[in-house]
């Protein structure tokens, strides 16, 4: 057996938290680590890897890892595979030296399956009977010492929610890692099939115990740490031995339950009441055929309203703060390239990151509360059927609704969807839903398409058109989800076997830590990408080939002096001429042939390029190009755009066809680098954001092309 004492002196100990979903593991993790935690991804997959520090009695610090919740070691989802690949691989960097197994003491039998499996792996373990407070409330009594003795494992009763008896848990951990560990006799008795195959594997790969070998036999194809030859060799063994994996799994699970259930019956007493619990009474209403969906949409309305309205004030503050900062820098520094880099590049880039924080914080505050309370599982239950048709999950609705405010928190919120395909589809289509950044663009353009008249005396035509844009965006999201459902292949069989946990009061520490962690991750991980792209966009708009920018400036100033323009008008004119001469301007002209079939000129081309930073930048760029200064007034810009005529035909540029084509383009196009940055982070690479960018842009192009060709 592994000599634990020896390892203490040579390396940092790794202690893992393990347990079933809903065992209260995260609460215990937060209690043990507080803010001393770091959240990342496990390599190759986007499953949360939560690490923390745990101070030991001997003065050392152990690494505490919160493993994803799982019911057994035969995974059917990504998170469960992560657990298997750590526990089946003693070479893994996170292979635990000791495990704190968290079991919900009010449902002990169910929580003992995984416990008994891990015990057979021979890893030193402390059993923490969690939710002692709930057990007391439900009149469940249990004998901690008897459980410890029966299963030969140090056992403590704790309450993560109340923070009860963590000193007892700490003492048990310290004792476990300082005493030499001796694995107890295996809990599970192998069938002859299992014996034959596991002996071969154990011998060949020098594994510590037979159950370890059995896990390899059972999960051969899923062990990503093994070289592929080793995997196919084990698969061959499985075939040669006529080893029926599923039948043996069922047999194993049965046998384990048959063994520990009587043992637990002796130590746990519950006064079985046939009383209808509070949870059931709540569910009678919130999962009701009619009231259930209505209540859900009421919640979603609150979520949408909250991200949309509550974030307005802090967002304005952030914007005003950065505007003030820019102004201060402008007065302190001379007009040089580095002042421009600082204000238009760096400060604008940082502002562009921080502006999203209020929306992210508010959405995760609400989602975490709904998740903590136990409501989200009910939403999944109610909408599973509807969302399955589009390859998504009940939780996807929350993401799609949030997208109506902003796709960034929406994409981040998909982490709780455990099926990878369902999660990916949700991420891919969420940005179609019209977000708040599209509103200024729509506001400016809609006036060119629809007159501001009323129909039947009540409906404003522009209002109806607005609604139409939203409906088109929803159809685009669901339609493309349906297409992705057909295209994307997955090995995972789709299951819905979801525990509907008892309703509980949220633990606010968990909620706040979650909000904090999401905001931090966004600011750092996505922030990096957003920042770099901001600088690139700044370079494109501020510099031009050779000395064209200076020539443009001189020309503009000469023109201004000849026409007696005032200082502001001159500055606006210079800015307009400069952007035309910049790389962005050249790019705009370069892509003009490609966008002419959509009805756009090079000026619109420039705005398309710069608004990749964020859609609302379209307005600002238009203002600069038409030399009307950086005004926030959409009316002024619209008036100026209305006057713009095509130099060849002499007709207005923003006619019905072009404006409608632009509207269609902005509904579909992925004009948001921040969303792409978040998609990169959430899918673990550039593959999916690039695919997403391409198909959204192609759809936007085709849609705009069709509309323009039909109506022009």
């Amino acid at each position, binding site marked *: 057996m592994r000599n634990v004492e020896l390892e203490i002196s040579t390396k940092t100990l790794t202690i893992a938290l393990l347990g079933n979903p809903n065992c209260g593991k995260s609460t215990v993790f937060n209690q043990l680590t507080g803010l001393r935690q770091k959240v990342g991804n496990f390599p190759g997959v986007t499953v949360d890897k939560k690490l923390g520090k745990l101070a030991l009695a001997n003065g050392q610090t152990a690494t505490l890892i919160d493993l994803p919740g799982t019911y057994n070691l035969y995974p059917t989802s990504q998170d469960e595979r992560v657990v298997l690949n750590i526990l089946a691989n003693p070479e893994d960097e996170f292979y635990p030296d000791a495990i704190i197994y968290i079991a919900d003491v009010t449902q002990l039998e169910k929580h003992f399956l995984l416990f008994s499996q891990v015990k057979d792996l021979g890893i030193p373990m402390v059993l923490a009977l969690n939710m002692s407070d709930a057990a007391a409330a439900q009149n469940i009594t249990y004998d901690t010492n008897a459980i410890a003795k029966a299963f030969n494992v140090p056992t403590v009763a704790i309450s993560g929610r109340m923070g009860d008896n963590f000193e007892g848990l700490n003492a048990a951990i310290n004792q476990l890692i300082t005493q030499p560990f001796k694995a107890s006799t295996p809990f599970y008795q192998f069938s002859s099939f299992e014996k034959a195959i596991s002996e071969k594997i154990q011998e060949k790969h020098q594994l510590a115990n037979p159950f370890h070998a059995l896990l390899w036999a059972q999960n051969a194809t899923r062990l990503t740490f093994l070289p592929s030859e080793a995997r196919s060799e084990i698969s061959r063994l499985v075939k040669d031995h006529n080893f029926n994996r599923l039948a043996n799994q069922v047999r194993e699970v049965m046998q384990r339950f048959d063994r520990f259930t009587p043992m637990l019956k002796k130590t746990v007493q519950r006064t079985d009441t046939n009383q209808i619990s509070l949870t059931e009474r709540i569910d009678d209403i919130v999962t009701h055929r009619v009231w259930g969906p209505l209540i859900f949409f009421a919640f979603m309305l609150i979520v949408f309203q909250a991200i949309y309205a509550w974030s307005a004030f802090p967002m304005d503050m952030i914007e005003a703060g950065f505007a003030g900062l820019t102004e201060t820098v402008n007065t302190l520094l001379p007009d040089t390239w580095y002042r421009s880099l600082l204000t238009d590049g760096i400060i604008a880039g940082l502002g562009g990151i921080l502006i999203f924080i209020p929306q992210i914080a508010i959405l995760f505050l609400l989602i975490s509360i709904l998740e903590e309370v136990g409501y989200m599982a009910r939403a999944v239950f109610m909408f599973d059927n509807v969302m399955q048709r589009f390859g998504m999950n009940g939780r996807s609705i929350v993401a799609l609704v949030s997208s109506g405010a902003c796709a960034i928190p929406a994409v981040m919120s998909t982490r709780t969807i455990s099926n990878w395909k369902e999660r990916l589809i949700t991420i891919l289509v969420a940005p179609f839903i019209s977000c708040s950044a599209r509103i200024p663009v729509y506001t400016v353009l809609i006036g060119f398409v629809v007159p501001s008249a009323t129909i039947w005396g009540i409906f404003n035509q522009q209002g109806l058109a607005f609604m139409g844009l939203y409906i088109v965006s929803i159809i685009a999201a669901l339609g493309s989800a349906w297409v992705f459902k057909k295209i994307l292949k997955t090995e995972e069989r789709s299951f819905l076997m979801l*525990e509907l946990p008892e309703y509980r009061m949220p633990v606010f520490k968990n909620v706040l830590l979650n909000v904090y962690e999401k905001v931090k991750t966004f600011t750092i991980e996505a922030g990096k990408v957003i920042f770099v792209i901001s600088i690139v966009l700044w370079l494109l708009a501020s510099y031009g080939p050779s000395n064209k920018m200076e020539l443009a400036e001189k020309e503009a100033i000469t023109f201004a002096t000849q026409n007696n323009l005032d200082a502001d008008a001159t500055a606006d004119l210079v800015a307009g001429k400069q952007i035309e001469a910049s790389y962005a301007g050249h790019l705009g002209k370069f892509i003009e042939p490609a966008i002419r079939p959509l009805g756009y000129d090079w000026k619109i081309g420039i705005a398309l390029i710069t608004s990749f930073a964020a859609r609302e930048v379209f307005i600002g760029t238009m203002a600069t190009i038409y030399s009307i200064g950086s005004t926030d007034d959409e009316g002024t810009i619209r008036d100026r755009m209305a006057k713009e005529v095509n130099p060849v035909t002499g007709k207005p540029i923003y006619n019905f066809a072009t404006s409608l084509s632009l509207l269609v383009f902005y509904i579909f196009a992925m004009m948001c680098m921040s969303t792409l940055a978040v998609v990169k982070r959430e899918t673990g690479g550039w593959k999916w954001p690039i695919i997403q960018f391409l198909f959204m842009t192609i759809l936007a192009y085709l849609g705009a092309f069709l509309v323009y060709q039909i109506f022009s």
Partner: protein
Amino acid sequence: MIDLNALEPGKSATIQSFSDEETACKMMSMGILPGSTVKLVRKAPFGGAIYIKADNQQFAIRNKEAACVMLS
């Protein structure tokens, strides 16, 4: 023998077996075992899934999975 889908909302029955091993393994790991009493609490508002109660615990499962749960 009937499967879980045939149960009327509000009614209970005893699980006899599972007709599919993968489903069996998953259900049993969640504590839904042969011999457990299972109650079909209600059907999902838009169909496709059911809300069940087994061994003092509530679960949501799809009709597809419920079809593998044989009642005695």
